[in-house]
Structure formats: C-alpha cells, structure tokens
C-alpha cells in the first residue's frame, strides 16, 4: 500500500445532523474507498461540514478573509485527489451555504480535480439541480465533475436505482483519480491557467518573468494595449 494515500475530500452542506445530504455523501465516499481498495489504493477520507464553517463565511464573502476553519478546509482541498460535493436543494437551487463556500475559494484551487456532484431535496422536481446549476459552478473553477451526478429525493433513499448510480459515479471518480489527470494538468498545463500570486494551489510555482507585464515593470514598453489591437 502507498505510504501517501490517495485523498478524498467530502464537502457536505447538509443543514442538520445527521442530514440526508451527509448520508448520501457518506454512501458515495464508502463506495469510492471500497472501489479504491479493490484496485489496490488506500483512500483517506476527510470531511468538510460547511455548516461548521458558517460563522466564518460572512467575513470570507465580504473581505475574502479566511478564518482558521476555512483555512483548514482549503488545505484539505489543496491536497485532495478527488472530491465529493453534496448539498441540499433550497428554492430550486443548491444551498446558499454550499454556493457561498465555493465562491470564496481561489479560482485555481480545484483545477483538474475529479469530483462527484450530489444533491438532495424534498421532492424529485429538483432532480436537475446538480446538472444544470452545480455543474456550471465547477466548470468555472475548471474542476472535473464525473459524468454521473447524483440526486436523492426521499423516495430514492431506499431505491436500488440510487445504489447503482452511486456505484457508477464512484467508478467514474476512481477511474479519473487513478488516471492522474489532475496531476498531469497541474504539471504541464498549469501555467496556462490564471493564478493569483501566492494562491494556495500555486504556492510552489514560480513567477513568469517573461510576461508582457513583467517587461513593463522593468522599464520596458508594451507594444499596444489589447483593447486597441482589433481596431487597427
């Protein structure tokens, strides 16, 4: 077995304890770890309960100031090889806590990381929230949600259908984790994404001293600002 196990991070925005959202997330996590074991990989699971971060969310939203619990969550996501992101649906959308959590993260934190998206709701009429809303959030963050999203209304919780979909999503996730896609992207392609200086995901990377702006910073000139290029 590997000395440094593969890391799976569960982000659950369930409101109660235990919540059906967390229960769904745990089922997926269990499936992923047992799939991993079958393939010879130890998978260590860390859970971020967004509910416990809520006291720090207002300051993170208003000034991007991260408290200690947020900082620990970001460290976990920085190390994550795979992610399960689960939220309850309120008013036909992912919960504000869930969306708020991801909105304050740095843009490059999740690049290339495989994810399973999961949502729970009181009625099956919300069943497309994971695919129509959550997927676009993670597309913006350049993460890699697996093809199968999971949704559970009360009637799904004991259905065999949900179990088989969980299994399918877990297979997709472990396949992507084992393929090392995130590492590949973060190796060769990393500098093609935009990064803020000193971002958590980019702490080790060097600054590009050959950029146009760096040339300008060191007494050089820009040929033309980009906005004027088209006009001519």
């Amino acid at each position: 077995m590997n000395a440094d196990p593969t890391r799976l991070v569960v982000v659950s925005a369930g409101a109660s304890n235990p919540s059906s959202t967390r229960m769904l997330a745990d089922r997926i996590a269990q499936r992923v770890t047992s799939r991993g074991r079958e393939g010879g990989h130890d998978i260590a699971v860390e859970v971020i309960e967004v509910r416990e971060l809520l006291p720090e969310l207002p300051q993170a939203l208003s000034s991007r100031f991260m408290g200690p619990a947020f900082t620990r969550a970001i460290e976990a996501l920085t190390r994550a090889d795979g992610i399960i992101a689960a939220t309850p649906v309120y008013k036909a959308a992912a919960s504000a806590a869930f969306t708020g959590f991801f909105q304050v993260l740095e843009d490059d934190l999740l690049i290339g990381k495989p994810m399973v998206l999961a949502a729970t709701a009181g009625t099956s009429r919300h069943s497309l929230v994971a695919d129509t809303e959550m997927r676009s959030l993670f597309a913006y963050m350049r993460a890699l949600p697996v093809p199968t999203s999971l949704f559970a209304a009360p009637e799904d919780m004991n259905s065999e259908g949900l179990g088989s979909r969980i299994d399918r999503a877990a297979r997709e996730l472990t396949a992507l984790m084992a393929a090392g896609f995130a590492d590949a992207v973060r190796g060769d392609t990393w500098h093609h994404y935009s990064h803020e200086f000193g971002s958590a995901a980019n702490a080790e990377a060097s600054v590009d001293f050959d950029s146009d702006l760096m040339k300008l910073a060191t007494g050089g000139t820009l040929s033309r600002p980009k906005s004027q290029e088209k006009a001519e």
Partner: protein
Amino acid sequence: MQFGIMSVSDITRDPVNDYTPSEAERIKNVARIALKAEEVGLDVFAIGEHHNPPFFSSSPTTLLAHIAAQTEHLTVTTSTTLITTNDPVRIAEEYAMLQHLSGGRMDLMLGRGNTGPVYPWFGQDIRQGLPLALENYNLLHRLWREDVVDWTGNYRGPLQGFTSTPRPLDDVPPFVWHGSIRTPEIAEQAAYYGNGFFANHIFWPKEHTQRMVQFYRQRFEHYGHGNQAEAIVGLGGQTFIGKTSQEARDKFRPYFNEAPVYGHGPSLDDFSSQTPLAVGSVQEVIDKTLEFREYVGDYQRQLFLVDHAGLPVEMVLEQLEFLGNEVVPVLRKETESRRAPGVPNAPTHASMVHAKYGDAEPRQPRPNANRGDNVTGASPYQDSEGTQAIYPSM
C-alpha cells in the same frame, strides 16, 4: 527605523456619539493630528488619496505642504498616491514642488487604489489598471532624472522635449515606495528600480505580506541593488492602545464593529488574533509589533493607522500620546538592538544627496531665458549647455 502614522482620510460617523464631522472639521483635525505626530516624536505622517465622499484627500500635496510648513522633523508622505489615474507628469511636478517646500522632508508611496469607479472619472480604464500603473511609473522615473524627456506610451499623449519643473530638490528625486498586497509585478518594479516596497499588511493574514516581501527582497538582490537584507521595506499596522488590555478593547470595539472596512464582519477578537491589528495595553502593542520583523525581516518604516472608523479627534490625539510617548520609544530601542548589522535606514533626502554628491555641492539647475517652448534649442538649464533636445519626428 522610522515610525509614523497613515490616514485614509475617511470622514466616518462616530457610532458612539452619533456624530459625523463636516469636511471642514475633519480637514482641520487631520492637520492637528499631523502636528501631534511631530510633537510626540513620530517620524512620518502619510495621507491617502481619494476622489469621492466620504473622503477628503483629493489633493494630498496641498495638505502635506501645509503640514511640512508647520513642522521641523516630520517626513510627509502618501498612502497612497494613485499612479493609475494621476497623470505622471502632474505627479512629477506636484511632488517635486512639495519636495522643495518641505526641504526634502517628503517621499511618496504609489498604489493603484481600491476604488474602481475612480478610473473613468479621470478618463482611464480599470481593465488596464496594472499596465497603466507600471507604465506611468516608468515615465515618472525618467521625468525626475532627465531634464528633457522624449517619451511615447500607451496611456497618455507622447512627450517631446518635455521638462518637468521644478527639477527635484538638489537634483535628487524623491524616494518612492511601491505599495501592493499581492501583485508581483508591482514588487518587481520596486525591486528593478531599487525603490522601497510597502505592504499594507493590515487586512490580511501575515502569510500574504511575508510572501510578497520575500519576493521583493529576492528581486532587489537580483537587480544588484544590494543583498536581500538591504532592500527597503515598509509595513502598515493598526493600533488602539489603552491603559489596560480590557480598556483598549472596550473603547475600540464599538468603532471596530461599525467600521466601513471591518464592520459587521469578523469579531474584534478574531481579527486581532489573525491579522496585525493590535488592540491592547502598551506592552501588548509593543509585543505584537515586534513580531512583524520575525516574518518580514528587519525593515525600515512602520506606519500605523490610528484616525479612522469615526474615532473622535480627542481620542486620536490621546492615541498619539500613547504611541509616541510609550510605545515607539520602546520599539526604537528593541528594533535597534535586534537589528542585523548592515541593514540600512530608509533613505532620506540628506542620505540621498550624500550618496549622489559625497561632499561636493549638489547641482542647482538654473533655467535659461524663456524661449517659449521646450522643443527648440539646447537644454533648458544653464549648466547643461550643448545638450541638444531631440526634435519631434514630423
């Protein structure tokens, strides 16, 4: 090491007394605050620049000239001068004038500001904010070092045979600090020119500041201005001092809770433990400030924010008594004894004159007779006859 205060120039309602000072009152009071800074032995007074209410400081050099005229030791500076929306030609002229009138007791800090809407008010485009700042400084740098400048860039009209007047005092340009929180290009520019780097430091965890300062120090050495320990670093900070820890917290908390920057967000306790904000007894503020050098290295200038969030002027003056009489004397002694050998002081006009001329007399440019323009004939100054201005290409 220099210690001083920096003001944002906000006119904020005092939430305890439900009182908002008029612009006239606040402007008079900020001058009192600056004079008090000199009286209690602080070294530096810095004023911000804003172009919208509730701020008053649209014209920093006017205020700073007024303060310099009434003080003898205080260095006046900015926190910051907008290098984006000000024409660098006007910065060159106004701050050279301030340099003459203050007898060299000035420098300036350049920043990009934090108010997006200001860009179009001055005909600029915020999307070009960073290249604009970089290009503008490249021009400003030359305007203070070359009598006659030919220049073409992307963000203002070209200059042909232009002379920025007055020439800097003793022909030694004002010292410049570049302020930035997390833009490596700004730190790079500071390092390239051998200028100072200032980290605001106050709203952010120390890791941000540490990373930027380290980057600047490495690049300063890379460009051959000295080793990393010789780079010129300034830090912001924020204090509220009481006779006891409890008194400081009780008095400051209502202002903190309503402050435009922090209000309705993190608690005073959380913010104090996670950022450089130092609210407490004299000893607590000393201890916290002394920690800064442990993660940025020995540095040259420490500025504290003391007059914001609607604090009444009497309270600010009292804070300056604490700061100047009790905190800073200990900080001076402690930083001096901990400081590594070879770490320079922040440049002053006198030190820069000495560096340029040694014991020789500084140059005093005397203009030639008015010839109506800057583009024909020789140098505009008598002592550089024979230097031909370059004609514009027709």
